[in-house]
């Protein structure tokens, strides 16, 4: 049933996909975190148009399939923009915008979980809102946020496999290509599975390390 001999020469080719997957996941996470923080601040703020926009944004991106968002970004946006988008930027932007919606909810919950007394103490010292958020509230919220954020990061790492539909040469796509070339799908797909699993284990471990570091002040 198993015959890895014909697939072995293709293993390095599949492994190269790790770089592509990581690029998508890392850049998308950066976009997701930055945008997620901004959206979360809009949600907890008192300026209603921003609040409304952030809620609407989240609802749209959580309420439609990711694969649809990805295909709109890659196939449909050029119709609006008048120029083509490369696969990688399209994947990174689509994933970034999507995870921003989820991350903003995680961050909103994390900020709300910080003791209200912290804001009062900061106010009483005359600390302006922006500095208070940046230096006092968000660092503490991060501790509440980190486990869920890591979870989101891991989910994103696995879900990134759907970029294969727009032809990005990630782990998934490469395994599929090798399957097509050798007429054996089981082995390359199993290899892809192992790679994703190991990546998840590594990310989980990193997450635990970061959480441990952040608990320093407890």
């Amino acid at each position, binding site marked *: 049933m198993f015959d890895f001999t014909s697939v072995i020469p293709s293993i390095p080719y599949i492994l190269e996909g790790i770089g592509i997957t990581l690029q998508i996941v890392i850049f998308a996470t950066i976009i997701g975190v930055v945008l997620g923080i901004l959206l979360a601040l809009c949600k907890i703020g008192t300026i209603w148009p921003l609040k409304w926009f952030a809620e609407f944004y989240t609802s749209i991106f959580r309420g439609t399939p990711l694969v649809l968002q990805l295909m709109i970004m890659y196939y449909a946006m050029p119709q609006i923009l008048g120029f083509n988008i490369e696969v990688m930027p399209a994947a990174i932007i689509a994933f970034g915008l999507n995870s921003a919606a989820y991350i903003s909810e995680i961050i909103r919950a994390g900020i709300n979980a910080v*003791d209200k*007394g*912290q804001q*009062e*103490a900061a*106010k*009483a*010292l*005359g*600390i*302006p809102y922006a*500095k208070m958020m940046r*230096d*006092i509230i968000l*660092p*503490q919220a991060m*501790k509440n946020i980190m486990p869920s954020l890591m979870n989101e990061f891991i989910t994103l790492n696995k879900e990134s496999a759907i970029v294969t539909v727009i032809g990005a040469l990630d782990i998934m796509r490469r395994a599929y290509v090798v399957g097509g070339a050798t007429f054996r799908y089981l082995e390359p797909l199993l290899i892809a599975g192992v790679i994703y699993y190991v990546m998840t284990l590594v990310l989980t471990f990193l997450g635990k390390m970061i959480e441990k570091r952040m608990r*320093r*002040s*407890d």
Partner: protein
Amino acid sequence: MIKVENLHKTYGKNEVLKGISTEIKEKEVIAVIGPSGSGKSTFLRCINRLEEPTSGDITVDGTVITEKNVMKVRENLGMVFQHFHLFPHKTVLENLIYAPVKVKGISKEEAIKEAENLLEKVGLLEKRDEYPNRLSGGQKQRVAIARALAMNPTVMLFDEPTSALDPEMVKEVLAVMKDLAESGMTMIIVTHEMGFAKEVADRILFLEDGKLVEDSTPEEFFTSPKSERAKEFLDKVL
């Protein structure tokens, strides 16, 4: 130095402060006393606008506090909370120097020197690099006092500073506050510590049901209170 004029505060239908007026002079130590729910904490929190007054004016050093100048005025109003509210992710020293450096723009070296002086005064210099969670309640509150003092305020507001402490730690915090009072700091203290109020305060404000019922010296207040309500209250607590 602080003038409160006809201060009202309403939460929904619940009127917590029903028109309080008083004046606090420089270097005065005021103890605000009253049964729970009398509005004494709300009164204190209205002074630095942690609560927005429904109506009435508060003047600090000649400036009426408005939404616009409140941040500036707060720099001069140190506040100590019942539950300390130290920044848990910063060390004791970082707690003390953050606002002076980031809000007042004092150089870091100078802020550290000042912070160390203050920590020495509250007897906690050896804890400068500890995180707040490693401190006892009494130590946390002394750090919180030092943190407020680091801004070099002209007035210190205390909101039940010993109410969350274990009994054996109350003394060390009161001692720091007494030193501060003796050094000439203007202080407004919401407290349940009658002994402390009697000993340290220049004036007692007795609040009941959102009204300032009595404004007198400690001797007067504790020996011959004018109002029936103050008498009843003292009968219960003493």
